[in-house]
């Protein structure tokens, strides 16, 4: 599909993901321990900030569906705010047709499905994060994951949009490393987890980031998560190290504690949704471009 060639594309490979690294609201940088917001919906109502924008996304998606005009779409979404959108467009334009099955984040206007994979060294708490998010439980007795567990969780947003997370919780054991592509293939979001008390796990996280950059889908949204944030006294990896590494690699960063539930909902319901919705917005935009091209153009007078 040729839309990329007709637009002033600006391919910037290293910054390919950089647009995701800016803040959820107005480009404000991600903070390591963002203040806890109870539910995204309230954040949305109060601040008309990030989630306001998010729900607008879905509103516009509807517009797109029955109006199908690129002009409307563009004004509705305000693409100018997103730095780097056009470079993403370059990549995305290659396969507009594959929105549904190829990519983990997809769907009709009201129901978003997000395929998400957790990667990281064994024992950093990947399963604990997932179980905390999906079931609200925390089980301190460690249970080694075999292969990968699959869990899903649907959350409803204020505007009755639902987001269904399909989560692959992979095993951290070395023997499964070679099989990881099986699970991250087609994922919209990769969450790379390390343990803030273990520098080795931070190293391992960097290994995973590199692996994903090399073999993962370039569209994938990546998150770096420092878990076990409740163990401040044993901290070995500083917040700044995490932020720095995440920024360098175009990821967003957050520290969590599955034990205290700190930032867990934040991670999924705010950060990931926003990151995905940004991605989604752009996808829609390119769709609309495609559709617009096929529509009869009003003749300029």
């Amino acid at each position, binding site marked *: 599909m040729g839309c990329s060639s007709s637009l002033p594309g600006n391919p910037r490979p290293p910054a390919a993901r950089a647009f995701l690294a800016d803040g959820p609201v107005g480009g404000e940088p991600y903070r390591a321990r963002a203040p806890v917001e109870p539910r995204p919906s309230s954040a949305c109502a109060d601040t008309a900030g990030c989630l306001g924008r998010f729900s607008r996304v879905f509103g516009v998606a509807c517009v797109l569906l029955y109006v199908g005009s690129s002009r409307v779409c563009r004004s509705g979404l305000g693409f100018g705010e997103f730095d780097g959108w056009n470079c993403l467009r370059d990549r995305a334009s290659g396969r507009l047709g594959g929105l549904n099955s190829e990519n983990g984040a997809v769907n009709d206007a009201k129901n978003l499905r997000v395929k998400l994979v957790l990667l990281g060294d064994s024992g950093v708490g990947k399963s604990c994060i997932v179980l905390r998010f999906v079931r609200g439980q925390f089980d301190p007795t460690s249970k080694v994951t075999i292969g990968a567990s699959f869990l899903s969780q649907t959350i409803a947003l204020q505007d009755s949009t639902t987001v269904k997370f399909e989560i692959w919780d992979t095993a951290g*054991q070395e*023997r499964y490393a070679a099989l990881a592509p099986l699970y991250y293939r087609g994922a919209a979001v990769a969450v790379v987890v390390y343990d803030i008390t273990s520098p080795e796990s931070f190293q391992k996280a960097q290994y995973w980031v590199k692996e994903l950059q090399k073999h993962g889908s370039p569209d994938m949204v990546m998150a770096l998560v420092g878990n076990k944030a409740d163990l401040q006294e044993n901290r070995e990896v500083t917040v700044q190290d995490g932020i720095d590494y995440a920024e360098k690699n175009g990821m967003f960063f957050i520290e969590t504690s599955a034990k205290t539930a700190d930032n867990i909902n934040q991670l999924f319901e705010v950060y990931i949704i926003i990151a995905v919705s940004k991605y989604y917005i752009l996808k829609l935009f390119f769709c609309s471009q495609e559709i617009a091209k096929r529509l009869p153009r009003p003749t300029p007078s």
Partner: protein
Amino acid sequence: MSSSDGGDDGSASSGAGSGPVVLGSKPIEDGFSQLRVTDLANGGAANDGDAEAAAAEGSGGREGIAAEVGEVEDGGAASARAGGRSEIEEIGEARVMWRSNSEGEGEAQGSPSSSGYAGERGSSGGSGSGSGIGEEEDEIEEVRSDAVSDSQAAWMPGKRHVDEDDASISWRKRKKHFFILSHSGKPIYSRYGDEHKLAGFSATLQAIISFVENGGDRVKLVRAGKHQVVFLVKGPIYLVCISCTEEPYESLRGQLELIYGQMILILTKSVNRCFEKNPKFDMTPLLGGTDVVFSSLIHSFSWNPATFLHAYTCLPLGYATRQAAGAVLQDVADSGVLFAILMCKHKVVSLVGAQKASLHPDDMLLLANFVMSSESFRTSENFSPICLPRYNPMAFLYAYVHYLDVETYLMLLTTSSDAFYHLKDCRMRIETVLLKSNVLSEVQRSMLDGGMRVEDLPIDPLPRSGSLLPRLGQGRPVTDSQESLKEAYAGIGGPAGLWHFIYRSIYLDQYVASEFSPPFNTLRQQKRLYRAYQKMYASMHDKGIGAHKTQFRRDEHYVLLCWVTQDFELYAAFDPLADKASAIKTCNRVCQWVKDVENEIFLLGASPFSW
């Protein structure tokens, strides 16, 4: 035979009892006479039997039991032979020492000293009861409540005693050790203790194996006093069992084979390539987190007859119910699933394979063990690579595993790595059908009701198309003759003093075991019976002697009757005072009974030859 270096105090010239300094040395010849190196054809090897007792280490009065080993690993210079010898010597002595204790009274306390293995049983030596086979626990420190009748109830999964190593007394006293090591001597797995701390000990085991291999031979078994050291070499992987449980060699070897199979199930045989690239390859990280899998397999060696029968067992279910489950699994299998298996604990509810694909009972055992021992399968749906060693040891299959309720789980195996969503759909379809047709509730009821009970053995060869289940569901109608016979045996067991039986159908690769009932109330008694069956099985399948047809054996615990035909094998345990003729008659009745209810206790039609 070259006398060895360091560590040996005096060298005895030959096996005869010119034993060196040994405390309580009376029965020393006895100990040595037990030393026997099997399968070492090469001349010199037999000399390994030369006994040189290491200095017994007991200082003071209470020493006693723990035998000491010569410096196996400290003598870094010691040749492989020296290592091997001290091992053997030592255990010979262990026997001696143990005897001296059992006569005496000494509080069992080994004294720690040189490193090396001396896994003689210690402190429990004082227990008054005659120690029959299997009476002793595998682990002396394990306290088991005799009241528990469920054979798995008292067992906690997971690796214990990680703090031990070969220098700890407790470690040496363990009755049954299993080791996996690499051909360069690197430890891979040890049942007890931390693998890394056992590096020296593994190197010793490796030295023994490679010494014999250098002579163009293979070591299979070293018998030393009460101990047997069984070796199994699988390419670059060595497996060793050191046991004083008096299990037959064939059984221990079969257990090592299963452990190897379990490892293959996790990693496939392609790990061998890692060793080709780098002989010093450290395999422990690859097996990270699988301690529970191995420990639960090893535990099953003392309760699960499938481990030596090479057959699986089914959950008793009404014929129609099992058919319903089979039909929906068959649907799924036709859609590209290689195997669809529905199990409840270690019992099969139904099982379907794609055309031409057949599942070996050992693979099922290993797969079920893998799934049941890994907690992570219980929390959610899971999609994992696994390898079926008997199906194809080189390749991974992908297993979709999902627990339908607390004990019932569905496994769908496929060769395609991206079939997850398809399998998930299959599972939802299967689950719906199973719920609708009440299979799941039937399964739960059957688990509660249990299987065949010896008390229910029909007395008269009624020509009825017997059904097991209705009777189990609503109290059991008891005929008069049954009643009177029972009274004669004071309420214990079934007719003619039948206490327990296992029936294995050869064509079906399946077995059925009766439920444990009095007097097999305790785990200890059940384990003893299990070991007796195991011994019986080994003797019936001893290739050297030729297959027996029947065997009748009476000891102080029970009468064991074994009957092997082309179609089935029957193992039965009776009251020790049972009459032989009536025992045989009862066995006939058991066979008839099994035939009558075979629709319910076996999965029929799983083999392509039956309709």
